[in-house]
Each structure stands twice: as C-alpha cells, then as structure tokens.
C-alpha cells in the first residue's frame, strides 16, 4: 500500500519547463503578423502600400536633393515671412514674436505640461541648426562653375548661342579663383552629358547636344527593335516609320567642336580699371590658373580659343549673382535722393556689392546672372547641403534660439509664479497674456499714430469720467451724482455742441445719466472705503490717460506702417488672429440672439447666420474689396487689408455663432432654472451660468474653426492681397525664379500644415482629455 511518505507517491513538485511562447505570438514578429499580414487581402494591400510609399518617398527625396532649386526660398525668405514690411519697423515684429513665444511658453506651463520627449527633440533640432552649417562648410567644397569658350557658335536643336568672350563676376577680397580645362568631360559624349553644377548657356548647350545625340541613337534602336515584333496597330506603325525616316544621328559633339583640344587664353581683369591681374594659356595638361582677389568688387573673366573649336572651363570661386533694383531710399538710407540703385547679390552666400558693373566699349559686360548661370545637371548631395541647407539654417537658427529661450522663460516664469504665489495668479497672467496678443499684434504691426493717441487719450478720459461718476454716485445721493456728471460731461460734449451733432449729445447724456444712476443704486452695498479707493484710482487714470497720450505723441515711437506692404505669413496670421478675436463677441451675440425668445431679434440673427453660411467666403471678400469702395468713396480710403479683415470677421462670426449655439444647447435647462431660482437676472444667468459652460463645451469646435479660418485666409490672395499664397505667386512671377512653383508651393504648404496641424493637435488633446483639461502635450 502506498503511503504519503512513499517518495514514489508524492506529487511532483518540480515545475515543468516553462516553454517560451511561439515566436509568432509575441514581440515584433507578432506585431508584424497582426498589423501587416493578418489576411491574404491585407498582405496584398501591404505590398501595394509599401510600393506606393517607396516610390513616393524616393522620388520626393531625389527631387528635393537633386532637382529642386531652393534659391527661391533662401533668397525670398523675408518676403515669405513678412512681405515687403518696412525694414526700419522690423524690430517691432521681432519684439512681438518674442512676446508671443513668451506667452505660449507661459500658457503651456499654466494649463499643460510639456513631455520630456518634445523638449529633447526641440533642443536637438536647435543644436543641429547651429552645428550643421559650420560642419557642412568644413566638410564640403563649394561647387564649381562651367563656362564655355569658343570661336564658333554652339548649336543644339533649334538653339544657337555664341559663347561670350568676357564674363563679369563679383568676389570678395581674399577669395581664391582657380580656372582649368574640364578635360574629363571632353572624353566622349557620354562623359559630356555628366556635366553638372552652375553652367552658362553655351556649356549647357554642349551638354544638351550630347544628350540629344544619345537620345536619338537610343530612339532609333528602340523603334527598329519594336517594328520587328508585331506589337503595333497599323496606325502606329505608320507613325513610327515616318518618325524613323525623320531621325538622323548627328556626329559626335566632342569631335564636332573639338572640345578642349586647343589652347585657351584666359585672363582675369579688374572690374574698374580693366587691367589684367592674371593670365595663362590653358591646355588639357597645364596646371590651373589661380588668383587671390585683391579687393571686393567686380572682375572680368576673359576667355578666348585660338583655333576653331570649343572648350569648357571649370572654375571655382565664380558664382551666379542676382541683380536687385530698387529706388534709392527704399532700404531706409538717409540722404539719398531718388534714382535707381543696382545691387548685386551672390547666390551661394549673401555677398553683396553695389560697385558699378564693368563696361567694355560702352556695353555692360555679360555677368554671371542667375538666369543664364543656373545649376544644371543632377546635383550631388554635398552641393545640396552646401548651397541650400547651410545658408537656410544660418538664416533661421538665431531666431529659433531666441524664440525657444523666451518660450522657456515663459514656462519657467509661470511655474515660479504658481509655486511662489498661487496657481490662480499664474492662470490670470496667462489669460491676460493671451488676450493681449491680438491687441498687441495689431498695435505693433500697424503702429499707433499721434492723432490716434490723442483720440485714445480722449476715450480713456471719457470712460474714466463715466467710471468716476459711477463711483461718485456710490458716495453721493443719486441726484447729486447726476448733476456732477452732467457738469463733467460738459467738457466731453463741447466739440459736439459746437458741431451741433445732436445724436452724439443725446448719446453722451444718456450714457452719463445711466452711469450715475447705477452708481447711486449700489451705494448701500459698497463700503465708503472701497468706493473711495475706486474713486482715487479712476481719477488717476482719468488724469494719466491724456498725459500719457501727450507723451507718446511727442516721441511717436510706433509710426504707422504702410498696410500695402504687409504680406506673407505675417498677413496670414494677422488676418486669422484678428478674425477670430473680432468675431468672438459678434458670434456670441448672434448665438444668444438666435436663441432669444424675442421673435424680431431671433429672426434677424437667424437670417444673418443662414445667409452668411449659405454664400462662399470669396463673394464676401470680393464685396469688401471691390464693391464697397465703388459704392462709398469714404470707405475706399480704408486700406484693403482692413476691409478684408472686416469681411472675414463678419463671415467667421456666423460660423462661430452656430458653434456657440451648439454649446448653449448642450447646457441642461436645469442650470438656467436653478440660477433663476437663486434670483439671478437674465444677464447674470447668461454671463455666469450658461455661457461659461457652453463655451467650455465647444472649445474643440472653436479650435476647428480657427484651423479652417487660418486656411480660408488664403482666399484673400484671389482679391489681390499678398498673404502667404499671394506672395508665393508674386515671388514665382519674378524673372529669376520663374517656373519654380513646386518649390514655392511645397514651402508654403509646409508652413500652412505646421500651423494648422498644431492647432488641430491641441484641439484633439483638449477633446480627448475633456474640455480645458489637457495636462500633457
């Protein structure tokens, strides 16, 4: 009989070997199986999708690095950002940008937390922006430039071009120029098609001729091969036979032009005196001609072939230039009187000279201007880095650094405030900083003129007088208050009395009486101490307003800018922010009006909202831009930008009203009933109970509207304003950058996407975490 003590009868306590789960059940393999190949259909889809992604990304990268001409961005960056904004007022925008960075940092810290990942990404990007340019400069060499020299005309297809014997270029003192024959290109036509880098028209024509010849050869072979097989319809066969008869292979280009087989006389002349600085007779075995430029300015390269043939010179240190012409004084110089100024800017760096272009026999020497000396051929990666990436990073890295520092300062500032004092204080500052952005933005961008300051002072004066009377009414009996107020109002009314503006007089008297009456009603609920405090405060403001106004008028620190010069991203953002901020109060009023029980008001609001929502924005803009000035000459004097702003504002208000109405409907009716039961009046119920809840509920919808308004501002380009989309069209229309639409569109698309995706992302976070409760971004 087996007992418990019998070891053979015990339960086996040894744990069985735990088997690892199958490879396909956990880990990356399982993920791949479940997410990429869950079924036959999905497997096919995965392969198709992978092929699509691969082709799209490779062709995109190839184009960005090898094909695109990014000079259009690096050279017009300022236009894309701020249009033709006055350079002397640019500091205001910089200040504004820093303030906005600060406000955003502050608000981030107050309402949310930044994940460590985001901080690391930002810091790494910033570090790259600073480190990359010097590294690129050290590692890569400047691309070379090709020039053809020839005694004969160069022909390719229907184009004929005689190479210029002289070509002018600009250079800085101390730069090294070297010139040699590009003998590796002269081996064969195949080698000649490998010509790349900056090339003048004639050297490019040589390349085109070689390419043409090779293409014709290939085409003939292809047609002959294809005709042998039965692959064509009779119609096609006829066409191809006709084409074959018309094709003829030209003789090899290298032999026709005897490229690089003669000696070339090369001279470098000083631009001003035309004295030769260096000269050499170059053939394919001779060492390069080298020269260190003695001074900054113009130089002329003189190149002649002795025999009957062509040569391609490979030079370094000579780069295409951009000619800018503008009215003297436009750049903010003092003392210049009219006339046009020519400025020459080198494309590869921003070396600029205003030296006079050299002339020979009274004619301007042909220069290495950008249109003739484009980058041709396939661009190697190092040239991309050297020509585009490094200059671009150099232009933006300082601004990035400052923005990030200010943002960080705001972030730390908010944390400091909420730790030292209370989160409530930080929140209040955050709200104020946000509200200040539209006003400050407008004031900074547009400026404040002296008359405006005076008007503002008068307004402050008026308003504080009303407040003064209100608080005085608290201390005094209502009749006395009204009397005093009338006296005070007398000052405000004098101009209207003189002008006999009855409407204004009625208005001011009405306002005044109301203020005093209201003040006297609150007499019992306010302690005399508090009332006195307010009294003194308002009195000080009443005095301070005009004094400040006079002070500002004397110094005039923010003169008005020309609205026609606003443009680019600045205008887009301005339209968006002013549109949203301005349409907010109107939209809320419309929403309240539509839900009102008063039939006249609700009908009016409904008709307005539905009408505006039923017509396209472009019709509204068209009306504000082209119809309004036609109908009313006084309105024609209002700048275009402001009229567009007002159009956008009234358009956006209707959509905002519908969003707010949705929020109002989501507030349970019990809230309103409870508030009424507590004795709140209609205005109090709306202001303190329904509206806050309604707005909180529709924050995501409002953010969505911000995004769509931001995108819709691009429509102002159609009515002639130069916002981001409009400026892109003008930039592309310049002769130097004609045909570079892709680059321009890609660039502005990235900007639009970055802004609206950020807004959409924030809105989604708000939605996910419950309105107003996002805690981590």
């Amino acid at each position, binding site marked *: 009989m087996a007992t418990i003590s019998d070891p053979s009868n015990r339960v086996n306590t040894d744990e069985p070997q735990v088997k690892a789960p199958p490879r396909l059940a956990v880990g990356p393999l399982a993920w791949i199986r479940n997410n990429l190949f869950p079924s036959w259909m*999905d497997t096919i889809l995965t392969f198709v999708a992978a092929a699509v992604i691969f082709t799209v990304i490779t062709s995109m990268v190839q184009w960005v690095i090898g094909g695109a001409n990014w000079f259009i961005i690096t050279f017009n960056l300022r236009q894309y950002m701020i249009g033709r904004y006055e350079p002397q007022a640019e500091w205001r925008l910089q200040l504004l940008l820093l303030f906005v960075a600060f406000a955003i940092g502050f608000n981030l810290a107050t309402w949310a937390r930044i994940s460590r990942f985001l901080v690391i990404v930002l810091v790494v990007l910033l570090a790259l922006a600073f480190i990359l340019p010097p590294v690129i400069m050290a590692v890569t060499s400047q691309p070379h430039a090709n020039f053809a020299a020839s005694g004969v005309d160069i022909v390719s297809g229907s184009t004929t071009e005689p190479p210029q014997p002289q070509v002018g270029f600009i250079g800085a003192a101390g730069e090294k120029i070297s010139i040699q024959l590009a003998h590796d290109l002269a081996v064969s036509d195949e080698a000649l098609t490998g010509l790349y880098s900056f090339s003048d028209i004639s050297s490019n024509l040589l390349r085109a001729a070689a390419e043409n010849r090779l293409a014709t050869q290939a085409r003939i072979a292809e047609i002959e091969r294809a005709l042998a097989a039965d692959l064509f319809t009779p119609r096609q066969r006829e066409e191809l036979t006709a084409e074959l008869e018309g094709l003829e292979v030209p003789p090899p280009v290298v032999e026709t032009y005897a490229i690089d087989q003669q000696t070339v006389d090369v001279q470098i002349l000083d631009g001003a005196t035309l004295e030769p600085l260096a000269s050499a007779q170059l053939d394919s075995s001779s060492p390069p001609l080298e020269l260190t430029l003695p001074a900054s300015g113009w130089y002329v390269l003189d190149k002649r072939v002795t025999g009957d043939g062509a040569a391609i010179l490979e030079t370094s240190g000579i780069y295409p230039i951009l000619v800018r012409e503008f009215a003297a004084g436009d750049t903010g110089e003092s003392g210049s009187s009219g006339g046009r100024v020519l400025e020459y800017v080198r494309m590869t760096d921003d070396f600029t000279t205003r030296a006079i272009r050299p002339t020979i026999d009274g004619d301007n020497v042909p220069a290495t201007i950008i249109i003739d000396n484009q980058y041709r051929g396939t661009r190697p990666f190092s040239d991309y880095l050297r020509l585009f990436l490094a200059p671009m990073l150099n232009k933006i890295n300082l601004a990035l650094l400052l923005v990030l520092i200010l943002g960080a300062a705001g972030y730390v500032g908010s944390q400091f405030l909420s730790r030292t004092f209370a989160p409530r204080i930080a929140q209040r500052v955050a709200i104020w900083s946000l509200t200040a952005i539209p006003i400050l933005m407008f004031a900074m961008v547009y400026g404040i003129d002296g008359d405006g300051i005076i008007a503002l002072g008068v307004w402050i004066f008026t308003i504080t007088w009303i407040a003064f009377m209100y608080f005085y009414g608290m201390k005094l009996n209502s009749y006395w208050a009204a009397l005093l107020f009338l006296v005070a109002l007398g000052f405000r009314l004098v101009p209207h009395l003189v002008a006999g503006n009855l409407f204004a007089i009625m208005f001011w008297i009405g306002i005044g009486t109301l203020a005093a009456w209201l003040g006297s009603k609150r007499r019992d609920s306010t302690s005399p101490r508090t009332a006195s405090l307010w009294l003194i405060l308002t009195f000080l403001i009443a005095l301070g307003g005009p004094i400040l106004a006079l002070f500002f008028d004397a110094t005039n620190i923010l003169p008005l800018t020309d609205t026609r010069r606003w443009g680019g991203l600045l205008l887009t953002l301005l339209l968006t922010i002013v549109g949203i901020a301005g349409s907010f109060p109107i939209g809320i009023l419309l929403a309240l009006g539509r839900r009102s029980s*008063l039939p*006249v008001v609700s009908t009016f609001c409904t008709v307005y909202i539905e009408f505006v*929502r039923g017509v396209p924005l472009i019709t509204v803009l068209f009306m504000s831009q082209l119809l309004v000035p036609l109908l009313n*000459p006084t309105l024609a004097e209002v700048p275009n930008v402001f009229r567009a702003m007002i159009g956008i504002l009234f358009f956006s208000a209707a959509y905002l009203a519908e969003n707010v109405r949705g929020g109002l409907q989501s507030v349970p009716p019990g809230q309103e009933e409870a508030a009424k039961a507590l004795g709140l009046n209609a205005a109090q119920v709306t202001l303190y109970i329904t509206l806050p809840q309604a707005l909180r509920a529709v924050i995501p919808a409002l953010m969505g509207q911000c995004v769509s308004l931001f995108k819709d501002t691009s429509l102002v380009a*159609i009515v002639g304003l130069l916002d981001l989309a409009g400026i892109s069209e003008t930039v592309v229309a310049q002769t130097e950058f004609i045909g570079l639409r892709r680059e321009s569109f890609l660039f502005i698309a990235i900007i639009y996407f970055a802004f609206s995706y950020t807004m959409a992302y924030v809105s989604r976070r708000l939605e996910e975490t419950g309105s107003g409760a996002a805690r981590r971004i």
Partner: protein
Amino acid sequence: MSATQHQPSSIPSFLRDVRFLQVIGQIVFAILVVFVVSRIMTDVFAALQKNNLTPNLAFLQNRAGFDISNSPSWYTSNSSYGTAFQVGLVNTLRVVSVGLVLSTLLGILIGVFLLSRNWLVRTISRVYVELLRNTPLLLQLFVWYFIVMLSLPIFREAYTFPPEGVAHIPIRIAFYGILILVIWWRTRRWEIGSFRRNAIISGVAAMLVMIEIGFWLYNNQPSWQSVYANGDMTSSSFLLYAVISAVLIVGAWFVPIQWRGLTLGSSIGQAIGGLLVYFGIIPNSAFRIEIYPAFYASIRGFAFPELLTTARFAEWMAFVGLGIVLAIAQWVYFGRITETTGKPIPRGWYALLAVVIFAIVGWVVVGSEPAPVSIPVLQEDQTVYMPLEEARAGNLLTIQDELQYNPSPLIFRLPERTNFKFIVGTEIQPEYMALLLGLVVYTSAFIAEIVRAGIQAVPYGQLEAARAMGLTNSQTLRLIILPQALRVIIPPLGNQYLNLSKNSSLAIAIAYADLFLITTTIMNQSGQSVTGMVMVMLTYLIISLIIAAGSNWINRRFQLVTR
C-alpha cells in the same frame, strides 16, 4: 398688513412689466435695423445713380461680347449676359454634382481604410487625411492646376490608356481560367489541408507551371522546338522525362502521410503538364487584339469615349421605362410580402434584373430592325442612294447620318484625333479636371473622418451580437453597422456637401468659367456690380438651401423613430 407695507416704486408699473419692455426693445431693435439698412441702401443707390448704374435686371438682355472657353453650343459671344450667367450656373453644377458623388465614394473608401487592421494602410490614410485637411484648398487647387495639369505632355504626346498597340493573349489562358474555376467549385466545401484537396490544388499548380515552362522553352529557344507538339515517343529525352516522372510518382507514395497529398499531386500534375505540351494538346496560338486608347490626357485636357443616342434611342427607352415600371411594382409588392410574412426576399436584385432584362430585350428588338436599304449620302457634291453598309465602308457617313440610320439605340465611339484636335470624343478641359480633383480630394479627407467617426460610434457589442446571431460579414455590415453609422454620418456629411458647393467658387483662382468667374466678368463689363453680386449670392444660397433640404430629408428618413 403686509400688502400695505409694500413700498410704492417711483417707476410706473408698465415699465416694470417684462412683456412690455420686450415689445419696446424689439421695436427699437427693428427700427435700428431698418434705419441702418435703409441708410446703406440709400448710400448705395445714390452712388450708383451718380454713375448712371441704377440696379436693374434689363442689362441681362444685352450682348455679352466675351468668349467662354469650352462653352456649350448654345453660347456664343453674341449671346446675352443672361445666357452667359446660365453657362456659369451649368458649369458650377457640373463640378458640384460630379464632385459630390466622387468625394463621397473616395471618402468612404479612405474612411474604411482609416479603420483597417493593416497598420500600413491605416497610417497612409491617416497621413493623407491630415495633409489634406491642414493645407488650404486654394493651395491644393494651385498644385492640381499649375503642377499636375500643366506638366502633362503636349497634345501630340498625350498619355493614353490603355496604351495603343497589339496584345497577344494566349488561348491557353482561357483553359487555365476554366480549370481554376472548376477546381474552386469542386473543392470549396472540402476541409482545408485534407489529402484530396492538397493533392488536387498542388497537382493543378504543378501542371500549370510545367505547361508554362514548356511554352517558355519553345518560344524563346528555337533549338528546343521539339518540346512543343513533338509527340515522338521514341526520343531519348522523352523517355528520360517519363522515367523521372514515374520515379517521382512512385516515390511520392512513400513520403509521410501529412505530406503525401502535396507531393503526389504535384508529381502527377507536372507529369500531365509536360505530356500535354509534348503532345501539343494545348495550342500555343494567341488571340491578336488591337488596342486603341479610350482615354487621353494632355496639357490641353482629357478625352473620353463618347456615348451618342441615335434616332432609335426613344424606342429603346420605352422598353427600359417598362422595365423600370415593373421593377417598381415588384419592389412594392415584394416589400409588402416581406412586411406581412417576414420572409426575406432580395427585391433589389429582382428589380435590377427586371430592368436589365427589359433593356437587353429592347436592344435586341430595336437593333434587329433592318437597316434602310438605301440612304441618301453626298458623294462628290451630289446625293446618291446606297445601302448603309456600303456608305459606311466608303467613309461617306456624317455623324448625323450615323445617328439617324444606325439601328442600335446607342453608339459608343472611342476618341480619335488629328494632329491638332479630337474629331471624336468627349473632351474635358484641364481647368475643370483640376477643380474637380481638388474639390474631390480635399472634401474626401473630411468625409473619411466623418465615416470613420460614424462607424466607430456603433458600439462593438452590436457587431458581436450580430456575429453571435450568425449573420454573415456582409449582412452585419448591411443590416447592423451601416444603418446605425449612417445616423451619425449623414448630418455632418450634408455640411461637407454644402462646403463643397461653396468651395467650387474657388474656380476663379484657376480660371475655370464657373458661376462666380463669369459673373465677375459680367460685372466688370456691364458695371452692374450690385445686381451681379446679389445674383451670385442668391444662386449660391439657393444651391445651399437645396442641398441642406436634401440632406435634412435623408436625415429624417434615417433617424431613429422614437415616441
């Protein structure tokens, strides 16, 4: 008494009556509105009167005097402004109606992709949606027009689809098709991985591979010609092949049982395949098909095949109409039966069948009418009479003749071009295409998100319950998920339709002659800017109202009926 202690107020009682105040307030408000509006109106009229441009509608009768590219035949530059306005309206409706349909289809597709189990597909669709939603439509239109449309090749070198040429389709493809269909039909109920199934599927696969190898050898290496249809049973290579095949087949009996089906099937299959080729049982000949392009795309626009209605179209339509009537009757009748007995009847299929049958019968009946024996045609400036076939062979028929005498109710014609233009084919200008593509792609991103949200709004339990009840996947989708998702989808979808119709006014950016662009031209020429603007706004308003009314109607039909 408490009543007497009530303090008399200095304000008269009616001033404290809310109803009275409300009435007064509204009157004041109304007066203010009327005042402001009338002030604006008087200003406007005064300004216009000064320029002799009092708003009126009489100018619509005046000669327009401008050309519209690709305008319909009823518009010339001598037509009136009113006609030009109509052209604009038609052009706008052309874009909007096609755009609504296409963007819905594309949006649903992308929306389903957004919910795909496949990570790659899901991510690509997400990127698609985010990229399109977060860039302005104007920019997208610019890209479609200036970059996509204007980089199409010149007219002579237009892209064509399908590419013109001759295709050789081997006859054996048909054999393969029939074989695979039969196998699928026979084995579809068999247990996956069973001996018979493995043997048959692997056998057929091996046979097909062997046949293809044989033909490849024959077609590419002439010295091996003997492979195909040699049939010489004494050749040494044939004997070697037969021995190897026999060894393989015998050897397959000895592999472990779970692999036996596969090995046996494939060894027998390859042997049969090889023999079929060797004895020439499967022909190597091919159908020769000349392919002519149906679609052309060039910088000048797109060309599609055209569908023309002949003189007999009306007769055919009578048949189709009969079919439709019958279909409706069926629909109603079977619907009643389903309602009363609960018996499911696929009435949609029946209705479709009725229409199709009547259409086919009608085509046969109408088309079988004898062609006229002699028709008048112009030959060398004089009218001669000859049979239709002869005239067609002699290339004497004009398109009008063809439409009048061709017995079939519809004629389908591929585009044909000369060096400069299309002589046959429906042409679409690049501006239209750019606008349509821009609107469709942009709106589809929004619709995709709506569809995704709608489907996700259906609780997962519904899906599980449907599966538990044994519904098939398509039934689950059709009867459980879609009806519930549509309730969520339809209201925002209507909004997107409204947006699309309004966004079509961006046509002005790429110079497509839509309502807004043409009215702008009219306004510039006639000076009647206020009238023009009001007309445009009212037209858009009416289009919006129609779309809104339609979507509300559909919405009501799909909403849950409660209480």
